[in-house]
């Protein structure tokens, strides 16, 4: 077993919408400093899983321990404190389109850290923007940016709080392969530079191969298999093989 300290522990997570059983006794552990990719088909409940982790959706039952706290039990205030330590990259980026890039980046800073000087804010904004290579877009509106740029700005917005855990919801979906590669490089770089643990949700095999230490397969609401890419690739189970063709 892994000797590293777990940062996210999910036990027997269940979530249904009406008659639609999305997650059915799902179990998963994310260890400190690790990049874990959760693979699953479209509509298999990947976004639902990640939204349960951050507390946007309430699970029907099960435990979700993030940094030692059970998310469904937290009150609004404690949940906010926890969310300041967890970065979430939305599938649709979710940039505020009425705000400039600068205001988008300032928003989580000002909201989570109430007392912070403008000079410091400006510095941090420029620092993360340079990190994602988009310092020149600081005064542009999100609508003026390309899809890949928007993804990088959204990533910068979550990085600005220097989170201990990053949750990525399909970071490469909808991007061309080259831009996708750039995002993958960025994810790896983030992990090394900020020492974050990352949970990446995807159905992109390139991402799973290049950016993961471990893969978990979400099939029919359960964590069907986990293991390194190479190990799963040689599996003879047809449900696992289906991902590799």
């Amino acid at each position, binding site marked *: 077993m892994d000797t590293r300290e777990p940062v996210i522990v999910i036990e027997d997570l269940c979530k249904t919408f009406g008659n639609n059983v999305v997650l059915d006794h799902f179990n998963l552990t994310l260890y400190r400093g690790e990049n874990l990719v959760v693979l699953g088909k479209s509509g298999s409940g990947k976004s639902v899983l990640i*939204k349960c982790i*951050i507390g*946007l959706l309430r699970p029907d039952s099960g435990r979700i321990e993030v940094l030692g706290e059970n998310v469904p039990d937290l009150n*609004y205030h404690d949940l*906010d404190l926890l*969310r*300041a330590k*967890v970065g*979430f990259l*939305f*599938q*649709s*980026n*979710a*940039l*505020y*389109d*009425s705000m400039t890039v600068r205001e988008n980046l300032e*928003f*989580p800073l000002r*909201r*989570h850290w109430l007392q912070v000087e403008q000079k410091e804010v400006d510095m941090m904004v420029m620092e993360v923007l340079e990190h994602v290579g988009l310092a020149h877009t600081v005064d542009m509106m999100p609508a003026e940016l390309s899809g890949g740029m928007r993804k990088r700005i959204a990533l910068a917005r979550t990085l600005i709080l220097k989170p201990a855990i990053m949750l990525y919801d399909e970071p490469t979906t909808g991007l061309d392969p080259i831009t996708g590669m750039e995002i993958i490089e960025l994810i790896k770089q983030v992990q090394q530079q900020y020492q974050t643990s990352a949970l990446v949700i995807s159905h992109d095999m390139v991402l799973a191969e290049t950016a993961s230490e471990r893969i978990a397969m979400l099939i029919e609401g359960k964590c069907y298999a986990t293991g390194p890419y190479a190990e799963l690739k040689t599996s003879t189970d047809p449900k696992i093989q289906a991902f590799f063709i």
Partner: protein
Amino acid sequence: MARFTARFFREAFHPRYEFSELIRQCFIIGYKSLSLVGLTAFIMGLVLTMQLRPSMVRYGVEAEIPAMVGISIIREIGPIITALIFAGKIGSSIGAELGSMRVTEQIDAMEVSGTNPFKYLVVTRTVAATLMLPVLVILADAIALYGSYLGVNIYEILSFKLFYTLVIDNLGYYDVIPAIIKTFFFGFAVGIVGCFKGYYSSKGTEGVGRSANSAVVMASVFIFILDLLAVQITELVWNL
């Protein structure tokens, strides 16, 4: 919808208060509707005067035109027309804005950024709409009366001062105060309906259009219902 309104009151009176966003919304909401409200109010006053004139002349009471127009504008036409324009302009824009924020997960993003989206988006916009509509109505009343003054002057010479005196002398608190009070409720209806429709917008881009559209329809219906209630309540209260 009732639960949404109850939640509004629960959240509106608890910290943290989003004052700077509230001020910004007041400015946006007021400024956005200003020119449209002004233009329609002016035409309304002018046309109303010109339309009334033939009948008034027939009965030989054209001297009563300012009083008559003043009463109709202040008591009913000013508030209701302004509120309906407000519903069309602001109700739809709130519905569309929150709707698109919902479908592109911006509302979720706010929530994970340490912000209560209900307070930040819904409470501020609803309060701003409640506060700004009365201001717009007072402005619209004034502009409509000016339009009416010009309408009178097409046919006869009447000094502005005299026109003004004729209007004011005919107005009592009974005419003005209930008319202003009801506009707060109209504004509230526009704000809360727009937010409700946007906040629970269904997925997809056509959901956004539907939110904006049904926000206008529902808000307009509410305005008429509230107007009807206002007449009844005013009479009741005044006769106590």
